[in-house]
């Protein structure tokens, strides 16, 4: 089974090159190959659930080199949870692209970049080597820069340039931090570094870990768009084509930012009280600032982008709360947010597809014209706001309980208040886009094509039943991986 791990990188990489060779044969080659490939990856990631039960970890050694020397791929519960999320969201984004991307020329290139971004994200999730982590971060980032500028209009290019400069400086700082760790410990294997920091006898680890943690928080913070480093996100995410917006907001910021940050800070460096407080502060600031900045927006997708910043704040708060319930809630919210934010961006894309605008003041009353879009948007909005039967409620509840249990009652109350602000700006979208009288010029609006509706309905169903994930052991196992911290190393080097 552990030999199959490398397929998460090999299949999409191979398919990307295959599309590059074969796309001229027939128009539908690129569509078919991409969807089949991602469907296979989704099935594969589900297969791994039973393999990692009970905090087990599978290791794949590239080229047969024994761990501290060679590169290893590691799949534990946290990785499987992320793999399922990433591949499922990508699958629906790819199905959605079949109709949506007909607006653009050179669809095959789009699919190639899409698959390369997926290679990067899958690689980040499964890698057990720090330099390899950096390489995969760069693969995912470079494809995402190209995808943001895919429309090559004024706005797209401007957003992409901004995103790229900020993102690349962050990547360079991540590389710098990795090299500092190598210079100190003489190893790049995550488990080995964790082992060496734990068994440090000279007492030099402490100051080095502090400095490197700061560099990592900056680097991954930019990738995750935590508030002082968020400036690129509200430009980049709305400018991309809709399926890419949903990929970027749904999974990319979580894999490149939150997952990598969690893995490095918790499993490799070992979390300390100070770092935990820094994360809590950053999380609280992003949660509040994201929500308040979302309120006055008049662009549909831009408001959703600010909402992502706010929700990332919730996830960080949950993971940094330091107790088991909070971490479970944080990871749960990470999965849920991946689902409903991609759904909401797809709805925004469907509205833009049919009406050719995404300004809130030019839209109005299209709920009867686009019932499926409206229904799925309502499901997504109710989930993100935190209405009881939907998945968002359960994860926010767990985060708030976790915060309260670790004596951060103030932050717990703040999280409740921000949920109300979230409700306010989603009601604003509902009122100005879907409800009310039909605006002039929108009489001939039609429902989105089948493939787009299919993705939206499926994601809406997942939103509805997603709360049941709490009862599956994979979530608690994943939270256990984060909670046990550097014990991750003992697990792998046995």
């Amino acid at each position, binding site marked *: 089974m552990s030999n199959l791990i490398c397929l998460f990188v090999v299949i999409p990489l191979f398919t990307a090159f295959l599309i590059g060779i074969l796309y001229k044969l027939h128009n539908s080659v690129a569509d078919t190959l991409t969807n089949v490939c991602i469907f296979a990856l989704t099935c594969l990631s589900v297969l791994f659930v039973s393999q990692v039960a009970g905090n087990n970890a599978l290791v794949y050694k590239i080229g047969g080199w024994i761990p501290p020397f060679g590169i290893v791929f590691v799949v534990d519960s946290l990785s499987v949870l992320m793999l399922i999320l990433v591949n499922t969201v990508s699958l629906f984004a790819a199905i959605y692209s079949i109709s949506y991307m007909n607006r653009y020329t050179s669809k095959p290139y789009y699919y190639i970049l899409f698959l390369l971004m997926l290679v990067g994200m899958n690689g980040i999730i499964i890698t057990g080597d720090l330099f390899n982590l950096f390489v995969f971060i760069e693969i995912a980032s470079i494809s995402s820069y190209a995808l943001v500028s895919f429309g*090559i209009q004024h706005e797209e290019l401007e957003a992409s340039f901004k995103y790229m*400069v900020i993102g690349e400086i962050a990547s360079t700082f991540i*590389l710098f931090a990795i090299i500092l760790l*190598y210079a100190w410990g003489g190893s790049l294997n995550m488990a080995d570094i964790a082992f060496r920091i734990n068994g440090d006898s000279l007492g030099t680890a402490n100051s080095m870990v502090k400095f490197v943690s700061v560099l990592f928080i900056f680097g991954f913070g930019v990738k995750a768009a935590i508030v002082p480093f968020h400036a690129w996100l509200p430009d980049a995410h709305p400018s991309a084509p809709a399926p890419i917006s949903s990929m970027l907001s749904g999974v990319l910021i979580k894999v490149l930012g939150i997952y990598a940050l969690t893995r490095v800070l918790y499993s490799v460096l070992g979390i300390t009280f100070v770092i935990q407080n820094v994360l809590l502060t950053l999380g609280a600031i992003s949660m509040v600032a994201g929500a308040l900045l979302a309120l006055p927006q008049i662009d549909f997708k831009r408001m959703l982008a600010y909402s992502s910043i706010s929700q990332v704040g919730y996830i960080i708060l949950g993971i940094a709360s330091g107790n088991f319930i909070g971490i479970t809630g944080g990871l749960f919210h990470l999965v849920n947010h991946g689902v409903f934010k991609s759904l909401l961006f797809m709805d925004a894309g469907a509205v833009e597809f049919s009406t050719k605008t995404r300004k809130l003041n030019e839209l109005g009353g299209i709920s009867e014209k686009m019932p499926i879009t409206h229904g799925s948007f309502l499901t997504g909005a109710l989930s993100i706001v935190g209405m009881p039967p939907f998945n968002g409620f359960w994860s926010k509840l767990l985060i708030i309980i976790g915060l309260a249990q670790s004596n951060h009652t103030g932050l717990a109350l703040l999280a409740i208040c921000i949920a109300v602000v979230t409700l306010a700006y989603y009601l604003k979208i509902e009122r100005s886009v879907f409800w009310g009288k039909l605006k002039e010029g929108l009489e001939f609006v039609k429902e989105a094509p089948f493939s787009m509706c299919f993705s939206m309905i499926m994601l809406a169903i997942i939103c509805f039943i997603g709360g049941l994930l709490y009862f599956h052991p994979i979530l608690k196992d994943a939270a256990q991986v984060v909670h046990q911290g550097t014990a991750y190393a003992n697990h792998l080097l046995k």
Partner: protein
Amino acid sequence: MLPYVFCIILIGIGLYTVLTKKNLLKIVIGFCLIEYGVNLFIVMVGYRWNGLPPIMLTPDDKTLFVDPIPQALVLTAIVIGLATTAVLLAIVIRVYKRYGTLDLTELKRLKG
């Protein structure tokens, strides 16, 4: 110690260029400087004073060798840097075609 300080100074100059210059190409150059600073740092980490190339002649060779891993790493880092610079320059060319200028202050369509 001194070479490391120079690396940090190089990174600092690059950051200063990115933050203060208004010409898009100068920003790209500043970004390259940051990258070179980090690459130089990687090479420095592997260097040993009076070290020899890492070729073991006997299995228990105790000679002082230069660390070969950072040299492999820096090659990868340079290639990745090439890719990012290429994409960055491609976007700059497209921006020039659309906006007709390389002035950063003219790029102000997105705000809020």
